[in-house]
């Protein structure tokens, strides 16, 4: 058995830190499989809700015979069902995630968020999977599973990923059928297309979470003359000096605010995560952001 890599070894601490965190669905789930989330279906679970008069076609086994004996009326005993919430985490592997160049803090945080959220979803009994572009620009997908080692499998896939290129996220979002989608991204790629795909998913009954990863160096670039080059669109090269810095900060803040507003308006759960925030803390915020 191969020895774990340093990164692989480090996510153990993250799993410990997020143990006990629950990630409830934002609304009732229509899944048939029993799970931890409220289901849109009324079933026979032990969690009683109400009585309803028997109608033709109801299962006679659900009639409350004791109540029939007392009141001579046939009532059916109703109860809320519990269901699982298949979850797929989409990890952005575009070149902009490999920032800062020396520390790659955005990419490391995105990896940790993916593994941490997968662990939380798995702990709730939900099937969990991951999708990302591999170094050959092909979509590497691990379908949602509930088996015991699925988190380790997700960690292996995530840790083997490498940021680069400018592959869009929207096609992946459209192709996924999981009830819960989580986008771990810096939204600097095809953000508008991805939002449209996410809206479609939400309209079809799913839920979408966005973990917007922002580097501290993007918020506060080095205070020196800098010829800033977009790693995904090399033709964009602009001089960042003191005279343009304030306007940059204002534009970036305005864009982030606009992005958050639009994604929330589209029904998604939006969480901005700065690279100097601990991953476990960010996982808790994302999980709690889904609660109503």
């Amino acid at each position, binding site marked *: 058995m191969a020895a774990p890599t340093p990164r692989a070894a480090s996510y153990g601490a993250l799993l410990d830190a997020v143990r006990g965190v629950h990630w409830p669905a934002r609304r009732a789930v229509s899944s048939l499989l029993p799970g931890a989330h409220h289901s849109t279906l009324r079933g026979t679970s032990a969690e009683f809700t109400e009585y309803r008069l028997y109608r033709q076609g109801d299962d006679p086994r659900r009639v409350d015979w004791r109540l029939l004996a007392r009141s001579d009326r046939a009532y059916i005993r109703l109860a809320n069902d519990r269901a699982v919430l298949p979850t797929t985490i989409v990890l952005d592997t575009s*070149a*902009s995630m490999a*920032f800062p*160049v020396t520390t790659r803090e955005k990419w490391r945080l995105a990896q940790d968020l993916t593994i941490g959220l997968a662990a939380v979803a798995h702990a709730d009994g939900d099937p969990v999977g991951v999708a990302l572009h591999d170094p050959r620009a092909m979509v590497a997908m691990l379908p949602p599973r509930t088996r015991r080692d699925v988190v380790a499998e997700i960690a292996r896939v995530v840790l083997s990923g490498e940021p680069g290129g400018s592959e869009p996220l929207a096609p992946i979002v459209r192709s996924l059928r999981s009830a819960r989608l989580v986008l771990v991204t*810096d939204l*600097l790629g095809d953000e508008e297309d991805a939002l449209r795909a996410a809206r479609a998913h939400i309209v079809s009954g799913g839920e979408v979470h966005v973990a917007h990863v922002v*580097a501290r*160096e*993007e918020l506060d*670039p080095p205070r*020196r*003359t*800098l*010829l*800033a*080059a*977009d*790693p*995904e*669109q090399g033709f*964009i*090269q*602009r*001089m*960042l*000096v003191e*005279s*343009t810095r304030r*306007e*940059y900060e204002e*534009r*970036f803040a305005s*864009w982030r605010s606009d992005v958050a507003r639009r994604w929330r308006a589209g029904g998604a759960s939006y969480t901005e995560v700065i690279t100097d925030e601990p991953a476990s803390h960010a996982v808790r915020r994302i999980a709690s952001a889904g609660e109503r």
Partner: protein
Amino acid sequence: MSWLLPSALAIAGVACVALIAAHFIARDRPVAEPLPTARFVPDRRIHARTTSIALSDLLLLALRIAAVAAIGLGIAGPIIAGARGRVARIVLADRSRSVLSLDEVRDSARTAGAADIVIVFDSSARTLTGSAIDSAGKAGAIGSLSAAIAAAHGVAGSLASRADSIEIALVSPASVEEIDAATPAIRALWPGRIRVLRVRAETISAPQAGVELPRDSEDPVVAGLSLLPREIGTSVRVVRGRLSAADSVWGRENAHVLVHWPASDSAADWPKRTSIDAIGGVASASGAIVARLPRLWAVTGRAVARWADGEPAAVERSFGAGCIRDVAVIVDPASDVTLHAPFRDFSRALLAPCGGVQAFAPADSATLLALAGTGPLAPTRAFRGSADESSRFTPWLLVLGAALLLVELAVRRSSKVAA
């Protein structure tokens, strides 16, 4: 190797150091750095430069240093001596009256070694070429070591590019009369020792010496001159009328002094003065006469007596191996001025040997030691720096520097285009 202008090397060195320093403090367009949010930076035309402490543009630096070095070397003017350690030689050959035998001078000059330049001198100096010394004759003029050394100083510059040092070989009896008041100062200008090859000096021939006067008892000048001692160390003939052929023959002989002292206006064919006047006195090296004396002629030559206003009153001309003295002083026959002591004092210089009083005795040893000097030979670099000296490498080095600057310009432009 030596340099015409060594300070140019120092200046070029300072320029090279400044170039390297300038390349260390490079100001350049900032290098593009990834920033995923670059799209939010305002798109304005900003010309920014960054400063970094790192050696940049090594090719340009090398080209610039090479260009500066080539130009500096060109201006400094390298001189590569053809024969390192070679000694050039200037032979100063004495042909004055002090020399007993010019053959002895020639032999001594040959023993001094191969001469690059030969200068013969008496009262003046003349540069000879090749074996012209063999054809040079002895002069009756007084010798002048000052003139000889000054002439050597003048030609030394032409030897500077051919040798490292210059030796002067002085072939001369170095008699007392050849050393004047200026000699020590002129000798001090020569920056090295001088090899003195002494030859035998002329001797004063006394046996036939004496003053030969005209037989005219009425002539006051003859009367006055007859009061002088007859034994004066040389043969003197005083002619009061026109010079005859016999006088000319006599005057050509060795050390004969023919004094042509006309008694009247008609006794000489000298050019007349534009205005004939009278003056109150005349003086020679030995004395002066204060009297009203008429001035008829304007004589030319080496002055041996002058009127009170400085105009020559008596001149000496070389004539064969002897000399002729033209004395344009007319004494009134009725005057008794010639009978007094001042006339005799005045006349003594007129009867002196040719060229004045002869002093062929060798200079004392201290004077000779000072003349020879001590220490090394004169270095040729002491004679460089004159405007006519140049380095044959200078134009090539300057062309190389200009070519390197052109290459630097091309490289700089191409690198700008690439950027």
